[in-house]
């Protein structure tokens, strides 16, 4: 019994889960509307794109990389999908085009890293700028209207449940399997843990890394078209600054920036916590500038909560 109990508290995502529960409990007393299914589903929808993109980012970070370009890839993919749909008149094309453009951006990042050995922080910072620039050039700065399946994914509901939420949950389930039970997933952890040892063990480092970045790019592309679909409009500035939210969700969820450790459910909890905060501000009508302060405090608490009981010298 004691072991099982300890185990629960020891899991990496315990801290953010605790914080999530704390905020939720508080909200359910403070606001009559919080527990309404409709509101909960809204929170889920609001978390869905960040959550989706964070899944890919989590793999990247577990493999000791970082992908700063996701925000811009969201914008570029959405714009490209919408333009192709508009030009061809086939709305259905927007989805595959966005995913492919995202994939291409991810591959570009991956190649910069694996072939040119450019550190991922710089490589993806470069792509962040390039992808945004191309999105602006493609559109001349004007948003492109978007409809069809993308709008269904972004704004539609199935039995009252937002489609984008369903997609995120399905993807999360898939990623739990990928991370825990596939050769690729285990190799991602191995690489993040000790790249040298992994190479000696015969893991094709570059090939794994390339795929990790490709996946992150593709999810950003997919997330982008869903986000644009929600608004029925693909804005070249879509996703601006998303990278920080996405990385924060990953780290809040217990993934270590130094690689080799991470939790997929934690990532989703992290994304939900961030959405919940924004929801709380509106539901409770917190005054403007206090929103900003509160956000910071909650982020710190979400990770700090459990550190009080942790052994001090543990992680030196």
């Amino acid at each position: 019994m004691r072991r099982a109990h300890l185990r629960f508290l020891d899991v990496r995502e315990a801290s953010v889960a605790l914080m999530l529960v704390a905020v939720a409990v508080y909200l359910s007393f403070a606001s009559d509307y919080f527990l309404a299914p409709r509101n909960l589903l809204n929170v889920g929808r609001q978390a869905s794109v960040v959550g989706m993109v964070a899944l890919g980012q989590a793999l990247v970070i577990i493999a000791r990389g970082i992908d700063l370009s996701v925000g811009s890839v969201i914008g570029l993919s959405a714009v490209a999908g919408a333009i192709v749909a508009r030009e061809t008149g086939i709305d259905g094309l927007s989805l595959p085009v966005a995913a492919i453009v995202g994939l291409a951006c991810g591959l570009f990042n991956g190649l910069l890293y694996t072939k040119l050995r450019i550190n991922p922080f710089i490589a993806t910072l470069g792509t962040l700028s390039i992808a945004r620039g191309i999105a602006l050039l493609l559109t001349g700065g004007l948003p492109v209207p978007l409809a069809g399946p993308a709008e269904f994914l972004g704004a539609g509901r199935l039995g009252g449940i937002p489609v984008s939420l369903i997609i995120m949950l399905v993807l999360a389930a898939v990623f739990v399997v990928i991370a825990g039970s596939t050769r690729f997933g285990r190799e991602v952890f191995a690489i993040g843990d000790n790249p040298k040892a992994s190479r000696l063990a015969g893991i094709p480092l570059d090939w794994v890394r390339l795929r990790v970045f490709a996946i992150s790019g593709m999810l950003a592309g997919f997330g982008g078209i869903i986000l644009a679909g929600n608004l029925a409009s693909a804005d070249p500035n879509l996703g601006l600054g998303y990278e920080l939210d996405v990385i924060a969700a990953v780290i809040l969820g217990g993934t270590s920036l130094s690689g080799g450790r991470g939790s997929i459910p934690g990532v989703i909890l992290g994304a939900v916590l961030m959405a919940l905060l924004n929801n709380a501000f509106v539901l409770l009508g917190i005054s403007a500038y206090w929103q900003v302060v509160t956000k910071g405090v909650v982020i710190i608490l979400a990770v700090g909560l459990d550190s009080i009981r942790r052994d001090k010298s543990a992680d030196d």
Partner: protein
Amino acid sequence: PAHAQTAAPEGGTVAAVANPDKKEVRIAFLSFQNNPFWMPVTEGAKAANDYLKPLGGTVDFVDLGNELSAEAVVSGIEGALAKQYDGIVVVPIFDGTARIINEAVDSGVPVISIVAEGAAPSKRVTFIGQNARAAGEQIGRFLVDKMGGKGTLGVITGYFGATQHNERMNGALDFIKANAPDIKILGPFENKDKAESAYSIVQDMQTANPDLSMVYVTAGGPFGAAKAVKDLGLTGKVGVVGFDHTPENMGYLKSGEMVGLLDQAPRQQALDASVMMFNLLVADQQPSAAVIPVEGKLLTPADAK
């Protein structure tokens, strides 16, 4: 006569003076580029260049990039001074730009500000633009009228602490508080100019306040709010008010989620400012006033039809 007037360019209100000595005049036009608002500004600058070219004036459009900040304006003006332009038209927006504007003017390069400027006074020749506070008040009046003096209004602002957004917001809110105290105000909430944030905020506001009847978006992304209204099936029950005649916004004005859109006549501002600068440089013709207000045109669904 030496100062024979030509006709004002299309879309502008100021005509260029004649330039008999064929004095070459170089004007730097500094502006940002990050969303559709800036397109008519750019066009205005280009049109001014075409218009002034035969008269001996060039207007070089200098892009300050896609991130709006005082530092970008300062480095832009420093660059223009380094390139020895005769005059500068700029979108200063921020408080912190006064010093460099003064430096330019002191070194003999006149500056005209357009669109928005900081609260700190500067030695610019004139400011053409919409007074953000007055614009806010104009919207406030419209809201009070539209809501019949009661109901719930949600407020979404671009960036907390951005002067222009603050002014637009407070202009409206102060008017409403003074004239229609029964209107309940939610917020403000920050959307960082993002449509997707506006969408979520409207969703949440409506959840907590089923009686929501109007949403005011002070800066970027009002169409996200309109889309939320549409997706909630509340077209006609909840209206969105915001700024700028972008195609997105106009679409929702037509379909009814958006009920009011205030325009800043950005093309006219750009054009007039350039021509005024030309006149000043060629004939020392001073602008009519230190501040030339541009009355915004408030479009309603009726105008969109």
